[in-house]
């Protein structure tokens, strides 16, 4: 025979009330009433101590659960959805590869095949750092350009004040025209952004500039725009460093 009382109800206090007392779920008035009841009854005090003890044991029992198993082949599964992350990762890799391949194809001035560093960048970074963003303008199509510029402005307005935030806008191919001091329809807005936000940089692809020059067209860039030797290298480098990457 067990002579210990369970968490049984008393005329004044229910088992649920005792649990709520331990879990600090009672309002001040009820808490005082339960506290008085417990103080007046040694058995209730013992029950509250037992509840406390159980809580402690439970937390200790699951403080360090066994390390999740790593399985080469899934032994038990919950359906094909479990493969979605793998598929998504593979698609991501393919997209990055395809994007970089496309970039290389666009840059006809590039004399060599895909550089080694670009190939290395096809491995996605473990974590994308949302505080570092690279936006590439590869087109000067008015609608896309306007949307992308609006997006840059929104990004800066929302995030430029955050510690460590950096944004690079990289223009290549036809996109370099958007950074032209002479005929960019967005020149004033871009200059204003460059002046207002010290953590934004506007870059033009050096290879794309050379390609333009070969066709007999020269381009004078806006004052705050810097030239990076190769857009491909720049994208690859930033992706490798974990920057978030968007393009138009």
């Amino acid at each position, binding site marked *: 025979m067990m002579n210990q009382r*369970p*968490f049984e109800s008393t005329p004044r206090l229910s088992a649920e009330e005792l649990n709520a007392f331990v879990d600090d779920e009672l309002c001040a008035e009820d808490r005082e009433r339960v506290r008085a009841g417990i103080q007046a009854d040694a058995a209730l005090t013992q029950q509250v101590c037992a509840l406390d003890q159980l*809580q402690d044991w439970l937390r200790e029992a699951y403080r360090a659960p066994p390390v999740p198993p790593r399985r080469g082949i899934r032994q038990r599964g919950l359906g094909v959805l479990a493969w979605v992350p793998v598929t998504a990762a593979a698609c991501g890799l393919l997209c990055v590869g395809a994007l970089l391949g496309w970039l290389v194809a666009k840059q006809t001035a590039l004399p060599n095949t895909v550089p080694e560093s670009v190939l290395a960048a096809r491995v996605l970074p473990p974590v994308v750092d949302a505080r570092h963003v690279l936006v590439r303008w590869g087109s000067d199509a008015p609608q896309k350009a306007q949307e992308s510029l609006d997006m840059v402005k929104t990004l800066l307005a929302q995030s430029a004040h955050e510690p460590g935030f950096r944004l690079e806008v990289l223009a290549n191919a036809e996109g370099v025209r958007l950074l032209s001091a002479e005929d960019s329809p967005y020149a004033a807005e871009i200059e204003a952004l460059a002046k207002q936000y010290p953590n934004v940089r506007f870059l033009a692809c050096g290879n794309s500039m050379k390609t333009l020059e070969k066709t007999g067209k020269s381009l004078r860039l806006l004052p705050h725009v810097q030239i990076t030797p190769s857009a491909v290298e720049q994208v690859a480098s930033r992706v490798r460093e974990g920057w978030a990457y968007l393009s138009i």
Partner: protein
Amino acid sequence: MTISELFFGRIGFNQRLQALRPRLYRLAFAWCKDPYLADDLAQEAMIRATHRQGQLRAPELLDRWVIRILANLWFDHLRAEHPTESLDEVMDQLPAAAGEEPEGAHRRQETIERVRAAVARLPPVQRVVITLVDLEELSYREVAEVLDLPMGTVMSRLSRGRQKLKEWLIDEASEGRRAASCRLRRVQ
């Protein structure tokens, strides 16, 4: 929603979801006591959360929302295994814990195993309610919302579950110790 909001919302969501994984795994392990199944449940909950991201009404509710998905997955799993029984009645066929009081156990791991075995003997709903309150430290109201149960039901399941744990881990152990003590006196 702008492109950037969508883009950064997704990145932030995925990072916060990844950060929840250890908590989800711990909860799932507390419910099923099987590391493989717990890992599957946690992973499946994260996948479903990713697919249903649009249904999340407020970012600050992410953990409660994913725990709700996890609990539903666990109940679905149990229903598939015990299609004719109520979730309030399903009991795992685990042996009762040996009658030694955890306090007196010499090895900490034995105590941990006894508590885990006792939790695994509880009916599923009681098990889930207790772990959400004691491990996740959710309020009764939050548990009621996560499990879509009335608050009174949460309180009664919690009370009954703890009562059973007390019987298995404290009362029976005390009884076993007392019986052993009587045998020793007879030997003397």
